[in-house]
C-alpha cells in the first residue's frame, strides 16, 4: 500500500511539474505555447497510430483512436455525443466538412490538476487537439481540428471537424 501511495504522489507531482511548465511558457510564448503543445500532441498521435487500421469512415476512425489510446494505457476515455434533436452523430458543414461532438470525461488535466487551480483550455488541453489531428491524419489521411466547446468541471464537450 505504501508503494502505491508513493507512486500516486509521484504521479501527481509529475503532473504538477507539467502544469508549472505549461503555466511558465504561456506568458512568454503567448499563442506560440499552444502551437508547441499542439505540435507535440500531433507527433504523438502520428507515432501511436503508425500501425493503426486505415479507414475513410469517421466513426470507425474514432473507434480506432480510442483503441490506440487504450493500447498505450492512456485511459482518457471519450465518447461521441449528439443532442436529442439531432438525427446522426456526424453532421456536415456547408463546405462539406464532417463534424462530430465528443464528450471527454477523464483526462489528465481534470484528474490531476483542476482541483489544484490549473486553468482549463490552456496549452496542455491543446495537446489533445494535436493528438487527434495527428491520429486522424494517419488513420484517415485528412486534416482535423478539435475545438473545445465547453470545459466543464466533470467533463468537456469538443467539436471534431475533419476536412473532407
Amino acid at each position: 500500500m505504501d508503494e502505491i501511495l508513493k507512486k500516486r504522489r509521484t504521479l501527481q507531482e509529475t503532473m504538477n511539474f507539467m502544469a508549472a511548465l505549461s503555466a511558465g511558457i504561456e506568458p512568454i510564448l503567448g499563442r506560440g505555447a499552444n502551437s508547441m503543445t499542439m505540435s507535440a500532441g500531433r507527433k504523438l498521435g502520428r507515432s501511436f497510430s503508425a500501425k493503426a487500421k486505415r479507414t475513410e469512415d469517421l466513426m470507425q476512425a474514432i473507434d480506432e483512436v480510442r483503441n490506440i489510446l487504450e493500447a498505450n494505457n492512456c485511459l482518457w476515455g471519450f465518447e461521441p455525443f449528439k443532442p436529442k434533436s439531432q438525427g446522426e452523430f456526424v453532421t456536415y458543414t456547408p463546405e462539406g466538412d464532417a463534424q462530430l461532438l465528443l464528450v471527454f470525461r477523464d483526462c489528465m488535466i481534470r484528474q490531476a490538476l483542476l482541483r489544484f487551480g490549473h486553468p482549463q483550455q490552456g496549452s496542455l488541453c491543446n495537446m489533445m487537439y494535436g493528438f487527434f489531428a495527428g491520429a486522424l491524419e494517419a488513420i484517415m489521411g485528412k486534416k482535423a481540428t478539435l475545438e473545445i466547446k465547453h470545459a466543464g468541471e466533470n467533463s468537456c464537450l469538443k467539436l471534431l471537424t475533419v476536412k473532407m
Partner: protein
Amino acid sequence: MLEMTIHEKACRGCQLCLDVCPTDCFTFDEVTQKAQVAVVENCIECLSCSFICPSLAISHKNHHQVKNFYRNIEFSRRMEKFL
C-alpha cells in the same frame, strides 16, 4: 440512467444554468420564474450547472464522477510504466 433535478423552492430564477449549459438541457418557465430540466438526455454530466448555481439547487444522480489521480489506485497501477 442519469437523473437531474432542480430543487424548485431553492431556484432563484437567475438563469445561470441556462447560460452555462452547452447542450441546452434547461428551459425557463416564465410563469413560475424558475428553471426547469427540459431534455435530460442532452446532459453530458459536466456538472457546470450545479457548480454555478448560487443556491445549489441542481443535483445529479447516477453520473460518472472524475476521480483524481492521487485517489485512484487502479489508475496509479496502470500508469506505473510512466514513472
